């Protein structure tokens, strides 16, 4: 028995030694360069994409010549089960059908805000050999290895909301939308008497979502810092970890924030999405500190939950990402790849500040 154990341990040590020596000889892997693959195109190179994009945004008719017929693409969700993602996926499915694609040829996987799950999904989708990958995953650095794998397999990627090295990007500029939210909040603060009347600015963040997600609140802070100066804004800013984007943890975090500032009355509040804002508002009401006149609340996304919050007067405004329109950009881009045409390196959705005054214009009931 002792001999067997000794042999096993020596075997283990040898495998490690061989492995490590081999690795030392191996060349360092190349980290995908964000600029590689995004070549400078000719002026009319994006005509095909732009034609399909315009078609998708202006009509419900099928795409000309059914560019997706008989082709396969894969789509990953950043976090299935929340309204924003459901809207994005619904839009992708709808446009895929308009492009002539069959439902079973649109492969789906849910990355669950989890890099480990994302890596597994990347491998599963590679095994299924789609012709284009639409990749929606929270961590831009993990996207490097995904880009490397799909590049080796010759499968083009379209990045959604979070950059993927070498891939065209579609979605929102997280810092820009947060800054927009900040500017709207500043306007409301000024309407209510200025920054001197505000006790605290609360940023309900999501560190678990990675750096890009953090920009959704840091951009908000930056707008205030630019307007009033860091010396004024820093002391009144509270950053809290609102969990993984769901209401429950945000509720607990907001309750803790309120308990830590018992004398504060006037607040500015933002969070990374409307589910977390739901949790925050619930905590404020539970604490008996809910008075809409004392709160300036701006949300991000304006999904179904966000629209309800604005209509019911729970929030002052939201920055609309129009997830229900993502497919109008993604499927034309995928179709362009499928037909051998170029895709623009950046496809931004136009964001809008949605308030009670204009919500019916954008989201008719």
């Amino acid at each position, binding site marked *: 028995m002792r001999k067997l154990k000794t042999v096993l341990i020596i075997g283990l040590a040898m495998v490690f030694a061989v492995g490590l020596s081999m690795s030392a000889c191996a060349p360092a892997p190349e980290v995908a360069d964000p600029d590689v693959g995004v070549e400078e195109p000719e002026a009319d190179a994006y005509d095909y994409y732009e034609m399909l994009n315009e078609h998708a945004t202006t009509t419900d008719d099928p795409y000309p010549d059914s560019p997706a017929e008989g082709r396969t693409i894969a789509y990953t969700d950043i976090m299935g089960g929340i309204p924003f993602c459901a809207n994005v996926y619904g839009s992708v499915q709808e446009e895929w059908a308009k492009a002539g694609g069959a439902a079973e040829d649109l492969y789906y996987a849910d990355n669950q805000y989890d890099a480990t799950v994302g890596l597994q999904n990347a491998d599963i989708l590679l095994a299924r050999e789609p012709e284009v990958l639409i990749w929606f995953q929270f961590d831009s650095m993990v996207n490097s290895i995904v880009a490397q794998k799909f590049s080796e397999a010759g499968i083009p990627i379209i990045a959604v909301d979070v950059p993927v090295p070498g891939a065209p990007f579609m979605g929102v500029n997280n810092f820009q939308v947060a800054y927009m939210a900040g500017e709207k909040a500043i306007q409301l603060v000024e309407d209510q008497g200025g920054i001197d009347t505000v006790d605290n600015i609360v940023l309900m963040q999501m560190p678990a979502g990675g750096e890009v997600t*953090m920009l959704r609140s840091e951009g908000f802070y930056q707008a205030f810092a630019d307007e009033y100066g860091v010396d004024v804004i820093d002391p009144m800013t509270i950053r809290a970890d609102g969990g993984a984007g769901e209401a429950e943890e945000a509720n607990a975090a907001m309750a803790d924030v309120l308990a830590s500032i018992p004398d504060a009355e006037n607040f500015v509040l933002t969070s990374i999405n409307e589910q977390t804002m739901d949790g925050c508002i619930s905590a404020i009401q539970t604490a008996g500190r809910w008075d809409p006149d004392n709160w300036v609340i701006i949300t991000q996304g304006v999904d179904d939950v966000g629209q309800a919050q604005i209509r019911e007067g729970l929030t002052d405004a939201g920055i609309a990402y129009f997830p229900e329109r993502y497919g109008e950009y993604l499927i034309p881009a995928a179709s362009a790849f499928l037909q051998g045409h170029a895709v623009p390196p950046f496809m931004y959705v136009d964001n809008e500040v949605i308030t009670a005054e204009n919500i019916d214009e954008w989201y008719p009931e």
Partner: protein
Amino acid sequence: MAHNQEEAGVKKEKKFYISNTVTLVIVLIAMFVFFSLTSTHFLSTYNIVSMISNLSFMGIVAAVLTMVMISGEIDFSIGGNIGLTSVVAAILVDSGIPGWLVLILCLLMGCAIGVFNGFLVTVVGVNSIIATVGTMSVWRGLAYTFSDGRSVLAVDPVIDFLGRGNIVNIPFPIILFIIVFALCYVVMNQSKWGRKIYAVGVNPMASFLSGINVKQVKFLTFVLCGLAAALGGLILTSLSMVGMPQHGQGLELTIISAILLGGTALGGGKGQILGTLTGILILSVLLNGLTMLDVYYYHIQIAQGAVLVAVVATYEVRQKRLQQ
């Protein structure tokens, strides 16, 4: 006559007795057949190899955590340990420290984490659930603190090889996975120390009275668990090329589910390394196969939970029948 009948009855029981592990293997084979028939890409070499490669870091931790659980304890801090190791490894690589040294330092840190958990449980006497749920948050919090909540790129030939290298076309994580399982199997089934772990799990007091150093046995399983989790963290860092404080989040429940699925008792004293291997394979095959079929993740979770409950309930029913 009655004695003969009883003997015949026993023989009859034995004749139809199938062990829990064999039952699991049958379930696993059935799942393989099902997914092979329903998905054209499931049985491809790429899919099978990448699936095992991706589960390897979980499997390594599960194998050693099985020993902890058989000894009657549990370690919930494995996920936090993985996150902390991942971040520390990436920061050290980023600061220019050679990969081999980073590897050693991180494994030593894993041991230190295990020593701390073992100390809390065996010396201070804190219940292992409470102790490791507490340290889970500590390791995770440290990971966020060290990384400032950011991902850190970890590119180094040695670290890269851990998760993405090959030896004779076999991914290195799979080789590590097989070695760790083989070692754990030998330890638990062929060695005195393995028998001590079972004995301690079944009855710590009787084990103590028969001369077994109960605290030492449990302490060592915690140290090994810390080491295995650190190795898992290094492999995950290599697989993702990134050190992330989020790495391993929620993994403790997946791994413990696989161990329970494999037939290990929460109360200790019962369990098999091969059962854990089959349990982790079942959960991974289920995730992989259902994802291949475009099933939503939350529906996959329902399936995984249902399989866990169904299999463990089957164990209990069979156990009761055998006792009767």
